[in-house]
C-alpha cells in the first residue's frame, strides 16, 4: 500500500510529507526530487522506480503530488487516490497552489490522517469529511451527532448525511459532451467518439431515491417489445447506442446490470452522475476542409473552410480554429470572411476566432505563409488543424427522458421538485489532418 505521500512546489521543496509505512524513509522525499523534479529530461513516465521504491506522481499546475511505496500496490488505485486527494483539497480551500497548501498545511495533515490509514484509502467523500474535519475542534458535538458522523463515514450511503432540508426542492442536470474527431485531409473520419458526462446538482431534502432515464437504445428496444409497435418505431429512431458507461458510486450498479435502470440516492450538491461514451451516429457539428499548398521553398498557401452542420436555429459559440504554421515562418497574411484571425508566432499557429455561427453555414479563411529558407533537412511535421467550439445540443444524440424523485418519509412528491436540464456539446480533440 501507499508508504508515503509528498507534496512539492515546482522547485522541488517539500510542502507536505506524510510517511505511512516504515519502509519509506526520509531519503525517499529527496530521491523523488532529485530524480524526477530536478531531472534534466522531461519526465516520460508517471511511475518511477528509484532504488526499489516506486513513485507515482501527478502534477497540478505547479504542484507535484507523489506517492511512494515499496510494495506491489494497486497502481490504478494510487492514481485514483491522488486525483481524489486533489479534489478533496480543492473542495476545502480552492485551487491547488503553493500558497494555499502552505496556508492549510495543518488541515492537509489532518485530511491525510483521515483518508489514508496505513496507506489504505478510507472514505474520501468531501460531503462526509466536511462534517467532522472542520479545523474547529469537536467540543460542540453531542453524542448523537458524533454517532451520526461515524455511521455516515462508514455507512452504506457514505456520501450523504441525514436530515438535509431545503425549502425549495430543486435539481439541475447538465449533459456535457465532448466530441472528439480525427479526420484525414480527404475528409475521411479516422476516429470519432463522444465522451459525455451527466452532472447533477441536487438540492433535495431528506434521503431521496432518484431514478434517471435517457434514450438508451437497449432500454428503448426492451420497452418497444412490450409496448405498441408504432411507439417503438418512433422512439427507436431517437435512441442512441451507448458503448460504455460508468457511474458515480451512489448508483446501484447491480441494478443497472440486471435492469439497466439508473437508480441512486444522490450526494447533496454537485456531483458527476455518470460518464458515457458513444461512437455511433455522432453528429459532427463542424467539418474542416483544409487545403495546404507549398509554393516553392519559401511560401505556403493555406485555405481552410469550415462548415457548420446542425439546425439553422441553433447557434454555436466560442469557435476557434488553430492552423499550425512551420517553425521557420517569417510572416503571415490572413484573409477571413468572418470573425478575426491572427498569426501567433509564439504558438506557431494562426488562430481564427468566431464568436457565433448558426447551423448550416460556411466560412473560409485563406493565408499566405512566408517561410525563411532553412537547411534543416527535417520535414515539417504538419500538425493537424484543431478546432474548439461549444454547441447547445448533445452531439451523441443523448436525451434525458426523466429524472424521478421519491422521498417516502418527507412530504414532497416528484411533481414538487423543480428540474432543469441543459445540453452542452464541446469540442474535445477535434482535429483534421492537413
Amino acid at each position: 500500500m501507499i508508504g508515503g505521500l509528498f507534496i512539492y512546489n515546482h522547485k522541488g521543496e517539500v510542502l507536505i510529507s506524510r510517511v505511512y509505512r516504515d519502509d519509506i524513509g526520509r531519503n525517499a522525499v529527496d530521491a523523488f526530487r532529485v530524480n524526477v523534479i530536478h531531472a534534466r529530461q522531461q519526465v516520460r513516465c508517471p511511475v518511477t522506480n528509484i532504488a526499489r521504491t516506486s513513485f507515482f506522481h501527478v502534477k497540478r499546475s505547479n504542484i507535484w503530488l507523489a506517492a511512494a511505496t515499496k510494495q506491489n500496490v494497486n497502481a490504478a488505485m494510487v492514481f485514483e487516490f491522488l486525483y481524489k486527494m486533489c479534489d478533496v483539497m480543492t473542495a476545502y480551500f480552492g485551487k491547488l497552489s503553493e500558497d494555499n497548501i502552505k496556508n492549510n498545511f495543518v488541515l492537509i495533515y489532518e485530511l491525510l490522517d483521515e483518508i489514508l490509514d496505513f496507506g489504505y484509502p478510507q472514505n474520501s467523500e468531501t460531503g462526509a469529511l466536511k462534517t467532522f474535519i472542520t479545523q474547529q475542534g469537536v467540543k460542540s458535538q453531542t453524542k448523537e451527532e458524533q454517532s451520526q458522523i461515524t455511521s455516515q463515514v462508514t455507512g452504506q450511503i457514505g456520501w450523504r448525511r441525514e436530515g438535509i432540508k431545503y425549502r425549495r426542492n430543486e435539481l439541475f442536470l447538465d449533459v456535457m459532451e465532448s466530441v472528439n474527431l480525427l479526420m484525414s485531409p480527404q475528409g475521411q473520419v479516422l476516429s470519432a467518439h463522444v465522451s459525455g458526462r451527466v452532472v447533477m446538482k441536487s438540492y433535495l431534502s431528506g434521503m431521496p431515491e432518484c431514478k434517471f432515464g435517457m434514450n438508451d437504445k437497449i432500454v428503448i428496444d426492451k420497452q418497444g417489445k412490450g409496448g405498441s409497435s408504432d411507439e417503438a418505431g418512433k422512439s427507436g429512431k431517437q435512441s442512441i447506442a451507448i458503448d460504455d458507461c460508468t457511474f458515480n458510486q451512489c448508483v446501484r450498479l447491480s441494478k443497472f446490470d440486471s435492469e439497466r435502470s439508473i437508480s441512486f440516492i444522490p450526494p447533496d450538491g454537485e456531483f458527476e452522475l455518470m460518464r458515457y461514451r458513444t461512437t455511433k451516429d455522432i453528429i459532427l457539428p463542424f467539418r474542416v476542409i483544409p487545403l495546404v499548398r507549398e509554393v516553392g521553398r519559401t511560401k505556403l498557401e493555406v485555405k481552410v473552410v469550415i462548415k457548420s452542420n446542425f439546425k439553422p436555429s441553433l447557434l454555436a459559440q466560442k469557435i476557434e480554429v488553430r492552423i499550425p504554421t512551420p517553425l521557420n515562418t517569417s510572416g503571415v497574411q490572413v484573409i477571413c470572411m468572418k470573425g478575426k484571425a491572427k498569426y501567433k508566432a509564439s504558438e506557431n499557429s494562426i488562430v481564427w476566432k468566431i464568436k457565433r455561427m448558426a447551423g448550416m453555414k460556411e466560412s473560409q479563411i485563406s493565408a499566405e505563409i512566408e517561410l525563411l529558407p532553412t537547411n534543416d533537412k527535417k520535414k515539417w511535421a504538419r500538425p493537424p488543424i484543431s478546432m474548439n467550439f461549444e454547441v447547445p445540443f448533445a452531439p451523441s444524440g443523448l436525451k434525458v427522458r426523466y429524472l424521478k424523485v421519491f422521498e417516502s418519509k418527507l412530504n414532497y412528491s416528484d411533481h414538487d421538485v423543480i428540474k432543469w436540464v441543459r445540453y452542452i456539446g464541446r469540442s474535445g480533440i477535434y482535429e483534421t489532418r492537413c
Partner: protein
Amino acid sequence: MTDSKYFTTTKKGEIFELKAELNSDKKEKKKEAVKKVIASMTVGKDVSALFPDVVNCMQTDNLELKKLVYLYLMNYAKSQPDMAIMAVNTFVKDCEDPNPLIRALAVRTMGCIRVDKITEYLCEPLRKCLKDEDPYVRKTAAVCVAKLHDINAQLVEDQGFLDTLKDLISDSNPMVVANAVAALSEIAESHPNSNLLDLNPQSINKLLTALNECTEWGQIFILDCLANYTPRDDRESQSICERVTPRLSHANSAVVLSAVKVLMKFMEMLPKDLDYYGTLLKKLAPPLVTLLSAEPELQYVALRNINLIVQKRPEILKHEMKVFFVKYNDPIYVKLEKLDIMIRLASQANIAQVLAELKEYATEVDVDFVRKAVRAIGRCAIKVEQSAERCVSTLLDLIQTKVNYVVQEAIVVIKDIFRKYPNKYESVIATLCENLDSLDEPEARAAMIWIVGEYAERIDNADELLESFLEGFHDESTQVQLQLLTAIVKLFLKKPTETQELVQQVLSLATQDSDNPDLRDRGYIYWRLLSTDPVAAKEVVLAEKPLISEETDLIEPTLLDELICHIGTLASVYHKPPSAFVEGSRGVQHKRLPARAGSGESTESPDVGQSVGGADAPPAVIPSQGDLLGDLLNLDLAPPATTVPAVPASMQMGAMDLLGGGLDSLMGDESETHNIHQRMESPSPQSLSEYSHPELGGDIGGSPAIGAGMGAPPAVMPASLNAAVGGGLGDLFDLGGGVGMPTGAFIPPKTLWLPAMKAKGLEISGTFARRSGVLQMDLSLTNKALSVMSDFAIQFNRNSFGLAPAGPLQVLTPLTPNQTIDVALPLSTVGPIMKMEPLTNLQVAVKNNIDVFYFSCQYPISILFVEDGKMDRQVFLATWKDIPNDNEAQFQIKDCHLNSDAATNKLQSSNIFTIAKRTVDGQDMLYQSIKLTNGIWILAELRVQAGSPNYVLSVKCRASEVSQFVYQCYELVLKN
C-alpha cells in the same frame, strides 16, 4: 488562516524559542508553537529535541492540537523510545473516550508508533476497539491489526487478533469488512502458507455482498482479495463473474481494473463453448476502452494492462484498433504504449489503416516516439505477411528522408524483416549500404553489420565494409564488437580466401586486446572452431536460422499468466513479477491462473501459448541481441573430453598468429625449422611457407640461441588436462606465454583436421610445408580409441593443383591407444586436376583397420611457389603487356613498415622474386614474379612510398582467380 508563515522561520535560537512557546500557559500560543514544529519537520529540520515539550501538549481536548502532537509523535517516537512511553497513558485514556472519533484517532496513532514498549500497551485497547460498538472505531482497529503485525507478528498471533479480524469479515458494516479484508490480505502475504483468508463459498458470498455496499476503495480491497480465490468449479466461477461484472461500470478506474482482473482470472475456468464465456468477452471490451478517457496517468496504467490482456486474449479488443490511435496531445508515455498495442492488434483486416497511421507518426517530433513508430512498421511487416511489401517500401521512403535516427531505426527493423522473409527483399541492401556512414548508434551499426555478414556473398565489397568498422573496434560498444566478430567470421567462411587477414585481425582484437569477457569468449570459440574444424564451424556459424515469427517481444507465457493475476498493480505496470521489485517475503509468492475445470475441457487447457498469437505454433521471440547469442548458444561451451587435445593446438596457433610473424623469423634458424615447419592452420592457409624458409632467420638477425632455448617445452603441455578446466587453463597459459614472452618459443602447431569423435577415435592434425623444394604434408595421428590401430593409408581427391601423395603413408608400427605418431608425407603435384571451391581446398581420405574417414583442409598457396620463379626482365615486360588489363588486380597492404629492400628480402625467401626496382618521386616500384608448380606465372608490381606504411600491390596473372591468394600471401609475408 495564514499558516504559511510557519514555513519561514529560520533564525538561530529557534528551538529555544519554540521550547518556551510550547510551555506557555496560553492554549493559542501552544498551538501556534506546535504548528511551527510540524512545519519545520515537514521541511526536513530536526526538531526531535523538543520531544518532551511537544508530548506535554498532548493532554488537551482540542482535537486539532491533539492530531498535530500525534503527527509529531509518529515521526519521532522511534528515535526517542523512552520518552515515547510518556504518551502511552494518554493513548490508553483516549481509547476510552466517549467520542468515537477520539477513540479511533488514538488507536490509529498508536499503531503508527513503532516502539516495542508501546506495542505492549496497545494490545488491550486494540482488543476493545476491535469489538467497539461504533463501526468507525472497528474499521480503524482492523487496519491497526495489520500495523501491529508489521511491528511484531508473533504478538498479533499470540494475542489472537487474527481470529478477531477474521470475525470482522462478517461484520454488518461494509467498510469494516473492507478494511478487515485489506488487513488480512496483507498479513496473509507475509505468511504464504497460512490459511488466513480461508476463502470458501460462504465467505466469498459475504464479500460479494459487501462489494455492493462499500466505498470505492473498499471495493478495490475486496476485488483484489477475490482475485486470490480459486473457485471449485466452472459454475461457481461463473456465478462469481456474474456478480462482479456490474463493477465494470464503476467510475473509479481502479475498481474497473480490479474487476477485470477477477474476470480474466476466473474466465480461465469457464468452458469456451459456454454462451456466458462469449458474453463475458464482449462485456470486457467497452470498460477497457473507457479507461482510455481517464486522466493520462491512469490511461498509462490502463494501457500497460491492456497490453497484457491483448497478449492473453487478443479476441477481446480485436475490433477496437481505432481507440488506440495516437492523439497529437497525448503525453509521450501514453503515445508509446498505444503504439505498442496497435502493433499487437494489427491484423490483415486493419493493416492498411495501421500503416497509414504509423507513417503519420514517423514524421512527428519526439525522437523516441518516431523511432518506435518506425520499428512498429517493421513489426507489422513481420506480423502480417501481406503487408510486408508495403512496409518495406514505406521503410525505404523513410530512409530517403535521411533523418539520422529514422534511418538507423529502419535498418534495425529491416534486419528482422530479412530474417522473417529470407531471399525476398535483399534487393534493398544496396540502399542500406549507402547509409552506412550515418549510423552512429550501436544497435543500428550492429544490425547493419549483421546484414553485411549474413549476405556477404551478395555484397561485393563486404570485406571492405566490415574492415571499415574494424578500424575503431575498441571504441565500439560491445554489441557492435560482438556482431562484427560474428559477421567477419561468417564472411570468412563464405569467402575464405580473401578475408583471412580480416578474420585474424578481428580474432586478435577480440581475444587479445579486449577486456570484455563475452567478446573474448566468443572470439576463442570461433577461433577454436575455425582452427579445429572449419566444416563444423561453417555448420555452426552459417547454420540456417529459425525463422522469426509473428510477434516480437511477447511476454513469456508463464510470466504473462502471473502478470494477469496482478492486473492493476505495479507488477502489471512494470511487466515484471512482484519479486523483481519488492523486497522481503512479500510478493515472492507466485500467482497462477486457475486451470480450466471440467473433464472435457482439460485436454484443451494448456493452450495458453496458442491463444496468444492466434497461430498454431507458439510464436518465437526475437532475442534482443539479434542472432548473436543464438549462434553461440548452439555451441557446447564445455567440450567433451575427447576433444581436449584440440585445445592446446588451436590456442598455440592463436598465440603464434598474433605475435608470431616476427618470432618466426627470429627463430628461423636451421635447427628449429623442423619444428616450425609442422605448423599449419586452416584459417590462414597462406601464412606459412614464408616462415618455413631456412635462410630467413639469419637475414633478419634473429638469435639462434633464443630459438633453440625456447623452442620445445610447451608442445606437450595440456594434453592431459581434462575437459573445460584444462582448456581454460590452457588458454591462460598460452596467452601468458604469448604476451609475456615475445621472444618465446613456438611449438609448430598443427591444425586439427579430423576430430576423434568423427573418426572412431582417430584424430588427425596436420600442416603443409615446402622444404627445399619438396612439398610435404606433416601429419600427427593420435589414437583416442581403446583398441590398436593399424593399416594406415591415405588418398587425395582431385584438386586444383593436382596435389597427390608421392609415397605411402609411413606408419610402420601399429598405433596403440593414446599414442601419437608424427608422419611426413611427401607430395607431388602431378595428380588429377579439378578446380575446387575454394581454390586451395583439399579433400582427404584416410583409411585404417577400422574404417575410412574423410576430411577436408586448405593448403596455403605459397607451398606452390617454386624456386625457379625468377623471370627474365625482358620476358617480364612482354608478359606484363601481354596479359589483358582486365586481369590486373590491385590491393592495398596497410600498416607495413618495412623499406623496399627488407621487403624484397622477405619476399624472396618465399620464392617471390624481385626482378627490377625503379624509383620515381621517392616511390620505389618493385617488379616481381612468381611461378606456381603448374607453370603459371604471376607478375606483380609493388609500390612502396618511403615513409608511408601503405603499399600498393598490382597483380597480373592469366588465371586471375589466384590474385586474391597471392595478395594474402604478400600481406602475411610482409607483416610477419
